[in-house]
């Protein structure tokens, strides 16, 4: 064994680093300051002078923060490639959405009134834990996807990177909270969902295609559903879960919409590519073979509180709202006209005729 005495005996003077003061005379932009505002010191408030200017292209795959001077001497490439064009990943709202994400974090352990979970009739409890099984599964992939893209975001476009980092956190919490609900009240985890477009989101190799599927259509549908969580919930705990998760999903959807808007403003020719992606993804979402056998049945059952006919009626009410909000989001992003041109999948268009 190495004893303390032995080590002391062997101890030499530590070698000192070399003093290099060249960084005291850099020509980076100097003299910037920022005053905290009502919400403190937000990203918006430090995005000033050159430090707030977003380069339309970036060649830099290193971690060097925007506006910093380049290092001296040889430097390695950190990743084989980054998405250097701002149109690939940028959103004008990313900084704001990140700030909001940080200030609206919540805890599934302490912010859900778990003590309001009363014993539910067995059929209802089963339907709820089935829904939660499917949701914890969906949320799991929703966290993998931004993680996959992180190394490809240029540090010059850090706002998008920060937003995606906050999404990783949000989706961890969603994966966790639905698992908690499934195991909190006497039920358990039931049938895996499988399919329904998760693989398509994960495998996409174009960021804007991925984001159109994940943020706009996928999370858009989820957000519309969560906002109607009152129709599904049977107690305060469940209501709160849906309300808080919906709040997070709103940010994810907003990022997707504003990213697409930014991209289409700068590269309108990309519209057809996104339409094509949505054609494919809508098709996947409504494909009966891809349908999650647990999710649809459990959702209808919960909506009708065991009355399946009433559940169907409310299901179409939800679906109609999902489709209307989806079309509205596309309009805002500058990709309107899917309904008018007959491009929207017929079974989604059909939902608009319901009640």
């Amino acid at each position, binding site marked *: 064994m190495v004893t303390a005495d032995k080590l002391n005996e062997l101890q030499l003077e530590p070698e000192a680093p070399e003093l290099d003061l060249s960084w005291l005379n850099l020509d980076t932009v100097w*003299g910037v300051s920022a005053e905290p505002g009502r919400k403190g010191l937000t990203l918006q408030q430090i995005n000033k002078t050159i430090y707030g200017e977003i380069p339309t292209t970036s060649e830099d795959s290193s971690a060097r923060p925007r506006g910093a001077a380049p290092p001296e001497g040889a430097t390695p490439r950190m990743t084989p490639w980054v998405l250097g064009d701002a149109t690939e990943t940028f959103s004008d709202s990313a900084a704001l959405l990140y700030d909001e994400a940080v200030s609206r974090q919540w805890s599934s352990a302490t912010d859900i009134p778990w003590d309001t979970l009363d014993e539910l009739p067995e059929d209802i409890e089963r339907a709820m834990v089935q829904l939660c099984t499917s949701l914890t599964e969906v949320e799991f992939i929703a966290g993998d996807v931004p993680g996959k893209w*992180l190394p490809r975001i240029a540090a010059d476009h850090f706002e998008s990177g920060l937003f995606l980092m906050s999404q990783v956190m949000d989706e961890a919490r969603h994966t966790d909270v639905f698992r908690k609900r499934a195991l909190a009240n006497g039920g358990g985890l039931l049938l895996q969902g499988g399919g329904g477009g998760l693989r398509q989101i994960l495998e996409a190799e174009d960021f804007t295609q991925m984001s159109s599927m994940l943020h706009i259509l996928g999370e858009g549908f989820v957000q519309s559903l969560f906002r109607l969580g009152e129709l599904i919930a049977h107690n305060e705990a469940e209501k709160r879960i849906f309300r808080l998760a919906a709040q997070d999903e709103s940010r994810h959807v907003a990022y997707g919409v504003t990213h697409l808007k930014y991209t289409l403003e700068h590269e309108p020719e990309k519209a057809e590519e996104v339409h094509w992606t949505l054609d494919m993804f809508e098709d996947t979402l409504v494909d009966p073979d891809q349908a999650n056998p647990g999710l649809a049945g459990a959702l209808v059952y919960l909506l009708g509180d065991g009355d399946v006919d009433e559940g169907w009626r409310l299901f179409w009410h939800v679906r109609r709202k999902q489709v209307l909000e989806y079309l509205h989001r596309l309009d805002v992003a500058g990709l309107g006209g899917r309904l008018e041109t007959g491009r929207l999948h017929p079974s989604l268009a059909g939902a608009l005729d319901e009640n």
Partner: protein
Amino acid sequence: MPDNDVIAAAKERLEQSGLPSTWLDIPVHWGVKAKEQATPENGGLRFQMLNVDVYGEVPEYWDNNTEIPRGAVPDTRTEQMGYSIFNKAEVWSDLCADLYEDAIADRWNSSADIPWDSLEPIGADLERAVCQIATLMSEYGWTKAQTTGRWLQEISYGYIEVKLFLGTVVFDAARMFEVWRKRALANGGGMGRGGRNWKFLPLTQSYTFSEFVVASIMHDSMLLTLLRRGEQLARTDAERRIYQLCEQDLERHLAYFVDHMRYLMLKEPVRREEIHRYMNKAEWYLAKDGDDTLYSALAVIMGDGREGAEEAMADVAELRREQIETYLGYLRQCHLADRQDRLNEELRKWAGMVELEEEEKIPV
């Protein structure tokens, strides 16, 4: 006990409407009620409380390449999702579930939780030095978030606790990136010079998760040593708070990395030499990075300006020695005490350790 009549009636109603009802046939592990443990004194409903019955059985090998939740019944039509880690030893630590909840309980907000109004002019040299350090801290936060994030798509739901915890690491790292950027741009300064980044290659290039973990132990333990000097380095309450909060986050990260590596060394001792290779690499890149900007900026702060920097270098050298000591200390905790004798020659000089001749090597 399941009420068969209620379920049979529910099935019938669903089938009449053409809805799938197979999910009602699944044998439920009825009676798992995590809510019963969830009291304010227990910290609410913490993830670890879910780990009962089959749901708490974390398998040594997880054999499903879909996103199926641990404990659910598979739908065999589901496509594989490309996960690559199915071996518990490769990622596991018993601490993950608690560290995940702790991270959420410790969450902070760089906009509102830092007393930004305590910033005041600190003199040109010191402001330059603080901004230089802030620039390098931002870089590390960015790299940490990117390199941690990329492992998420490799880890299957079997080890969900690990992924949840890594999600908090990504988010903590994001905050580390931006809180230091805010510091650099808030007080009349600006960004400094970027680092050379050679030292980060062992993180970005890692092929196995454990390789990423040992490189993280090296970087994080050195950074933690620096953050712990916050009292001495901070010139304002805002900086003091930033040092404290980043330190608290990094301690959690290291708790996981170290406990995981300890687990791996116990479960798969045969990997010891392989892990040493990764440490050889991480240390080599750190030593050869040769970028003394960080230490020079620290010298300017400790010396209260450029005039005092030369003299302060002795203190900085002592700090760097402590960094290596902290690193080796964490490795001792993961049954890698033998690193002491295999440490990179350059880092031995930083630590003031004698160069050992082959025959003098101390038995550990």
